[in-house]
Each structure stands twice: as C-alpha cells, then as structure tokens.
C-alpha cells in the first residue's frame, strides 16, 4: 500500500497491484458515474447535420473516448437519443414514440439549430424545436455545430448526469457573434457619423 499527498495536505491510501481494499461512496453517485461513461446512443438522424455527426463519430474526433461509442439501433437498448437534423410535423409522432420506447434513465441531445429551435424553417411543415415533443437535456446550436461543440455538449451531459441534474443545458458558442459583428469591416454604405 502506498501513500499519496494531495494539495490540501491530506494523505490518502492508494492500493497497489494485487492488494485489496474497499471504498465508500453514495450509491447514486456510483450509479451516475457508471451511467455517465456508458451512454448507448440511438441516432435519430434526419438531415444534413448527419454529415457532422459522422465526422464526430469517426476516429478524428473519436467519440469513443467518452464512453459514448456504441450506437444501438433499437431505442429499447439505448440511453441517449441524438436528434440530428430538422424534424417535420409529420415525423413528430415517430420521434415521440421512439422516445417513449426508451427505458429510463434516458437523455435527449438536440444536435444543431434545427433540432434545437427549428432553425430558419418557419413554415407549415417544420417542428420548431424537438423540445415541443420530447424533453431535451442538452442543446447544441450551430448549422451544423462543430464537432468540438458537440463534444462540449457530450461532456456537459456527462457532467449533468454525474450531478443528477435534469435541467436543460446549452452549449454556448465560443465566440459571441453579436460581439464579433461590431468588429467587422462594414462594406457598402458609408458611416453617416463624420
């Protein structure tokens, strides 16, 4: 058995090799820790964000690092519903039914602006955000979102699971476009202020 000193000056015992021992924790914390790293995902992919989803799931960005590796094409075997792309009014009942078929605990991930709020579709055929049909845990806006933003969203979801927090969360853009816009060079009309 070895010893390790942490920053606070406390010393903790560390097991080495074939030594045995025990640790105490809350059962919920243990369960949430297990859930956090074994998110089986159901990809509900409908539109162009799928390309970004494929990029994200592929080795370059390597979603498997976070334990969210295995896609399950049955909602009954999955924990995390990825809604990737625009959902039309006609698809809404199917999405609701898929969600209802998933076993608890279940989490929903709104991938991209269309899934989050309907995006620029404001018409007779598009559902303005999947949260009108199913409760959403994490929103990732972007058209499409960068894989980094999606990984941010996944880590946010894992954090929420560990804390047992079910309030919706959002991945904020790293650069605020409204702030950035002020710094852009304005083309066209000359400024009236002289």
């Amino acid at each position, binding site marked *: 058995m070895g010893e390790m000193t942490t920053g606070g000056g406390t010393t903790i015992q560390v097991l080495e090799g074939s030594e045995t021992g025990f640790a105490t924790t809350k059962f919920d914390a243990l369960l949430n820790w297990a859930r956090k790293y074994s998110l089986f995902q159901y990809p509900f992919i409908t539109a162009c964000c799928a390309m970004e989803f494929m990029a994200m799931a592929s080795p370059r960005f390597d979603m498997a690092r976070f334990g969210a590796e295995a896609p399950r094409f049955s909602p009954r075997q999955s924990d995390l519903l990825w809604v990737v792309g625009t959902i039309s*009014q*006609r698809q*809404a*009942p199917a999405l*609701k039914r898929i969600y209802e078929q998933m076993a608890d605990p279940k989490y929903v991930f709104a991938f991209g602006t269309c899934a*989050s*709020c*309907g995006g*620029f*579709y*404001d*018409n*007779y*055929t*598009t*559902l*303005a*955000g999947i*949260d*009108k*049909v*199913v*409760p959403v845990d994490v*929103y990732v*806006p972007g058209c499409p979102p960068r894989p980094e933003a999606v990984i941010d969203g996944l880590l946010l979801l894992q954090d929420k699971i560990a804390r047992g927090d079910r309030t*919706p*969360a*959002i991945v904020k853009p790293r650069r605020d476009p409204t702030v950035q816009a002020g710094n852009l060079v304005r083309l066209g009309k000359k400024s009236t202020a002289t």
Partner: protein
Amino acid sequence: MSKRVLEILKSKFGDDIYETHSQFGDDTAVVNPQRWREIARFLRDDPQCAMNMFVDLTAVDYLGRQTPRFEVVLHVHSLERSHRIRLKARIGDDDANGVEIDSVVSVWKGANWFERECFDMFGVNFKGHPDLRRILMYPEFVGYPLRKDYPADKTQPLVELRNVPDKLPPFSTDEGMPFGRQTHDYPRGEETN
C-alpha cells in the same frame, strides 16, 4: 427551334391556343384547359413533336393578380428531336372554385407523383388521376399550404405540443424567423382562424 412546335400547335388547335411566346429560348403556349389532355397526347404522338419525356408539372397561384387564379404549368421534352415546350392552363376563380383539370398520367406515367404533389400543395384536382392522394403532407392536414391564402405561420401538429416557457438564450419562446416577415404583408394564422 421548337418554335415550330408552337406553329404546329397553332395550326392544329387554332383558337384553343390562347397565347404563345418565346423568351430566351423557352417556348410557351397558354392553352384551353378543356383540351389539356388532348393537346398533351397530340404533343406526344405527333411525329413532328414527339414529346416523349415528361419533365415537370406544377402550379402557380396568382391570387389577386389575375383571374383565373391558378396556372398549371407542364414542361415536356423530346429526346428524339431535342426540343422542349412549356404548356400552361389557367383555371379556378378567386374563391378556388373549379380548380380542376384533366390528368395527363394516361399520356406520361411520370406525371403521377407530380400531379399528386400539385394536388397536395395547391389543391388542383386532376380528373382521371389513378390515385390522387396527398404525397408530402399527412392525410390529416387541412388546406393547401402553397396557396397564397394559406397563413404563412400556421402549423397543424399531429401530436400535442409541450409548452417550453423557459427556453435558454439564444433561443426564445418566439422561435422561427418572424423578423423576416415584419416588412411583408401576409395572412396571419390568428386573423384567419
């Protein structure tokens, strides 16, 4: 080149060809809707025309701009003679009565789903169509969404929608892009319902 097709049509059908024009190489004939299928069949079968390829069929709603209100537009092409023509027929009054025309599925099979889409979006009734159902919208949908008097912001959800009052910024409860409509006059759902 296919101006010759317009000449053939005019000599064959005379007064039933209401007007023709050829702009930028697109030859267009506005025809009598009563003889729609007959003219279509002639275009396909006549060896001078030989329009063996169906290209497109759609409709345009000119509400408040012209009467008859709807214009059904058909594009056909001849692979043998390499020419194309656009046929138009004007139907329906301002209250959308009499929006019907003969189906051309018996002439070109490819017209089947185009006519279904046209029926779905504009409510044009194609007489003699083998299976005139909605193709894009769900059967429960009421009205025809691409008509100019369909409210632009009216949706018809199939499931009861959840209320999401406290949505986080940058989203808001007033979603979509209503700011794009501030400068346009359009029929709104609240007024027409």
